[in-house]
């Protein structure tokens, strides 16, 4: 991409974010909102710079648990998605169970995981995994289940095995669905990690926000929220770029 087009593409979202912060700032000033209730973004950003040495290790911890959870979700989601996408029987058998699991509020599982695994990294990884698994599995299944029957006939009439069918058609065809789900899953995985850290960790952005709020340091809480949001945007953008490269054919 030429620098010029990159600039033109990056400008609208950057402007929207700037306007959002401006409205927030001016709104707080205009209505004289107490810093304890809602700090102005400039105050939250100042808090970030004040505490950045403490924020970064926590941010990296959250990023780590999110990525490990997401990685597990990609592996398991692709596998389960491929299975239920191929087999109508497995689909019928497993789908209600998947929906049931997905309907459980993940926050409600945090105390259970604390009992099982104690406080630490593992509950955060597991919550991130559980929350981001479902959209990946469903999308991969859709991509594979909607392979055109004629295409299946072409390959079967060549003596293709199920594995051939998956490698040559099912998998590449599911990729656009997979990337679409990945963009949803990555933001969800952050939600999962932070939710778990709020109650069941002594590290991570979530934990830092709990400590900050118990000290009534609301600007630091908001600094934490902004950092999580920025990491979410960064990962989303990374997957979007990867998507453009890998499945360019789907975006002509």
């Amino acid at each position, binding site marked *: 991409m030429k620098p010029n087009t990159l600039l033109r593409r990056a400008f609208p979202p950057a402007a929207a974010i700037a306007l959002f912060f401006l409205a927030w700032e001016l709104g707080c000033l205009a209505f004289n909102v107490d810093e304890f209730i809602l700090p102005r973004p400039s105050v939250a950003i100042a808090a970030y710079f004040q505490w950045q040495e403490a924020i970064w290790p926590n941010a990296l911890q959250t990023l780590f648990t999110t990525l490990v959870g997401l990685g597990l979700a990609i592996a398991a989601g692709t596998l389960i998605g491929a299975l239920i996408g191929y087999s109508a029987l497995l689909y019928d058998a497993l789908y209600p169970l998947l929906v049931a699991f997905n309907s459980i509020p993940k926050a409600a599982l945090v105390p259970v995981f604390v009992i099982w695994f104690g406080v630490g990294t593992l509950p955060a990884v597991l919550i991130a995994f559980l929350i981001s698994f479902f959209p990946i599995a469903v999308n991969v299944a859709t991509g594979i289940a909607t392979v055109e029957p004629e295409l299946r006939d072409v390959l*079967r*009439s060549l*003596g293709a095995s199920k594995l051939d069918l998956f490698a040559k058609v099912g998998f590449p065809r599911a990729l656009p669905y997979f990337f679409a789900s990945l963009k949803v899953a990555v933001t969800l995985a952050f939600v999962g990690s932070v939710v778990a850290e709020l109650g069941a960790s002594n590290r991570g952005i979530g934990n830092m926000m709990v400590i900050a709020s118990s000290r009534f340091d609301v600007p630091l809480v908001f600094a934490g929220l902004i950092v999580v949001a920025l990491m979410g945007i960064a990962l989303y953008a990374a997957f979007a770029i990867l998507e453009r490269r890998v499945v360019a054919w789907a975006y002509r």
Partner: protein
Amino acid sequence: MERSQPCVALRDVSLFYRGDDGREVHALEGVSLSIAQGEFVAIAGPSGCGKTTILKLVAGLMPTTRGQVLIDGAPVRGPQKNVGMAFQNPTLLPWRSALENVLLPLEVVAPHRHHFRSRQREYEARAQELLQLVGLDGFANKPPYQLSGGMQQRVSLCRALIHEPEILLLDEPFAALDAFTREELWGVLQSLWLARRCTVILVTHDLREAVFLANTVYVMSKRPGRLVHMTHIDLPRPRTLEQMFHTQFTDYVHEIYNRIGEVRV
């Protein structure tokens, strides 16, 4: 054409299946047919008469309810490897270039799949040659969406032929194209067949297409599908579009048209 040992034979084939509403559908009933090696057969009939079913049975994609399908004297008991298929929808893989689409069968079908890497150059040259034969030189590296419907269908024909199948099964391959492109592709298919001389079964509802391309045209009745009429087309090859306006040609079309009229009522 000499009548050698039949390459494809259907012996009293019937196919029933249970439809979505639970009722039994009689798709084919008592169909017998024998096709010689290298013959070009067209099957014409009203829509929904089970024409496509015959192709799937020959390809071994579904089993018969009664009767037998034989290829080279051996009963069909599962997906065949020496057939090529093309459909109304070109079904190209959108993530592959035209050339890569043509190569697909060689990556899958034995024995080619085992030497695909070592002989990739040779296979690519073969695919290029086919693409040239259908008038697509210079389009090998284009993705399908940059090709017109007619071009995509040409690629689909190349894909059906790249592994040099003994039998080519065509399911209304030109039905979705405009009249000019369709007639152009009749010529393309004819020259492919004249070059390869494989056995072809073409399913169509276009009678001029059937007469233009085939040695033998069968007419099927509506459901349950039976073969009710057979005509040998005695026109010299290569046939030209100009011939379609000769009385000899139109007489054939007229005769078949009347037969279909009889079975539709």
